[in-house]
């Protein structure tokens, strides 16, 4: 049995793990990064990147269908699935090559193989023992299902959905969260009939309620069906499709059922508990500085309870590397991390919803304003509708921004600075936003909350 020694050993080379590795080597540490599959993890190979490629192909399909509204004569003739696949895989393979090159250029040692934590400071990979002064757990997540709902055949998860070599005629989606509505959006644009089943009363139930309602309205207009507030009971598969039975007795027939009910942490059988790590419902419990409590042992990314997002993984990875280096990095709470749902229309948010802000700061201490994109020139040009809602503490900072509408995702960068720096709307008001942009809609909301509305009453 051979042994390798590093300042830091990282188990898992996804967003969280590889970001930790990149930052750690910059800070002068030697790093061993253990990955059993492909560097880049879920996000690059089966998550963010491929889904967003599909969503852009979907946008192109919509543009060709709707071209006449803008004075462009064009005919939409269908989806060429192999070409979509080539486009999507071209992006992944180029990004993958780039990432491998970066990891190599930075001098990170990659250990290929399945690792297991065998001591608080050691990971076993085959017959190698990889020892680190510090160890970072970053084993990520997998597509969960419901108890009794087995994946297989026509019952699929996002992994299989990405690999489909055809556009289904009719598809049912269990779960109206981010992944569910993104696939619904893609498939509808590709020509499928889509029905979403969500047990909670709203689509994207983690968003501000007014945003959820607008998404529901927009999806209805697009012809995407959904059943809200009703639970799944069972599914049966037959030769041409599936029949889903709900607890209220309704049935939904489709060619496929996509199960998108969330992602579970990959922590089982990896020796975490044995090393003294607290594991709760599969998640690794850490303090707010991402320490497991076992000295020198940290966790980052989707295995840490909270938002499961790639950039949270990056942020946590960088944070832990800096923490180990004694740089005392600042904590960014999950609530202040930007969230984007890339369906059409897009949703983007950061900070507290109005209700949560009222809970935290007191209902009479909070104001909000929701600017309708109908007033925004650029949104009109894009023929999109939606709104931007900003929540502030009275005589205090902006604590939440909630947006829906075509292309609003990119507006979150500005909102992220405002919320994280606890800016007052009055701080932003003097800077008029470029015209005509969707930025301006955010600007109008800030202006209104600073009591100087421009294009609003």
């Amino acid at each position, binding site marked *: 049995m051979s042994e390798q020694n590093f*300042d830091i050993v990282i188990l898992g080379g996804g967003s969280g793990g590889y970001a930790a590795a990149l930052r750690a080597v910059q*800070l*002068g*540490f030697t790093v061993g990064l253990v990955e059993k599959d492909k560097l880049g993890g879920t996000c690059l190979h089966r998550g963010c990147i491929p889904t967003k490629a599909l969503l852009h192909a979907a946008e192109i399909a919509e543009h060709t269908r709707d071209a006449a509204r803008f004075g462009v004569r064009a005919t939409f003739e269908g989806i060429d699935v192999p070409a979509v696949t080539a486009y999507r895989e071209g992006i992944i393979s180029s990004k993958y090559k780039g990432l491998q090159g970066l990891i190599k250029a930075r001098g990170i040692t990659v250990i290929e193989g399945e690792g297991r934590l065998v001591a*608080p*400071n050691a990971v076993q990979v085959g017959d190698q023992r990889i020892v680190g*002064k*510090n*160890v970072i757990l970053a084993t990520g997540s997998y597509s969960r299902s419901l108890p009794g709902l087995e994946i297989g055949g026509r019952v699929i998860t996002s992994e299989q959905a990405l690999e489909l070599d055809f556009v289904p005629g009719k598809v049912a989606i269990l779960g109206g969260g981010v992944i569910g509505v993104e696939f619904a959006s893609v498939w509808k644009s590709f020509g499928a009939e889509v029905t979403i089943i969500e047990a909670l009363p709203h689509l994207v139930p983690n968003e501000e309620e007014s945003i959820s309602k607008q998404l529901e309205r927009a999806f209805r207009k697009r012809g995407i069906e959904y059943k809200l507030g009703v639970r799944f009971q069972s599914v049966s598969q037959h030769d041409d499709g599936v029949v889903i039975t709900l607890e209220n007795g309704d049935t939904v027939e489709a060619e496929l059922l996509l199960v998108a009910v969330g992602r579970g942490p990959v922590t089982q059988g990896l020796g975490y508990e044995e090393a003294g790590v607290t594991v709760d419902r599969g998640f690794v419990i850490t303090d707010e500085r991402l320490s497991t409590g*076992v*000295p*020198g*042992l940290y966790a980052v990314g989707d295995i840490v309870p909270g938002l499961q997002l790639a950039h949270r993984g990056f942020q946590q990875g960088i944070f832990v590397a800096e923490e*180990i*280096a*004694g*740089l005392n990095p600042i904590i960014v709470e999950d609530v202040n991390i930007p969230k984007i749902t890339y369906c059409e229309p897009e949703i983007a948010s950061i900070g507290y919803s109005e209700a949560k802000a009222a809970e935290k700061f007191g209902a009479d201490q909070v104001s909000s304003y929701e600017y309708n994109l109908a007033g925004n020139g650029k949104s009109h040009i894009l023929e999109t509708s939606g709104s931007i809602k900003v929540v502030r503490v009275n005589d205090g900072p902006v604590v939440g921004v909630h947006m829906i509408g075509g292309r609003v995702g990119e507006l979150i960068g500005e909102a992220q*600075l405002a919320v994280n*720096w*606890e*800016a*007052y709307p009055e*701080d932003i008001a003097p800077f008029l936003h470029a015209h005509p942009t969707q930025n301006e809609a955010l600007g109008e909301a800030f202006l209104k909350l600073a009591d100087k509305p421009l294009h609003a009453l």
Partner: protein
Amino acid sequence: GDAAAAATTVAAEHVVPRPERPRSTPPVRKLARDLGVDLESVPGTGERGLITRADVEAAASAGPAADGRPT
């Protein structure tokens, strides 16, 4: 255990001092400039010595620089 000791030593070797400057958030620094408040002279009462908006406003209403807003 060992790992902890190692972690601390490593930490000590790797501390990179940040450039010194009054610690506050950009909008508060901007407010201070607009109010003519010199941040060097403002004690920070926020987390880890962060100069808060209240600190700046207090300095502005107390100090002689309160009218230093550029005209």
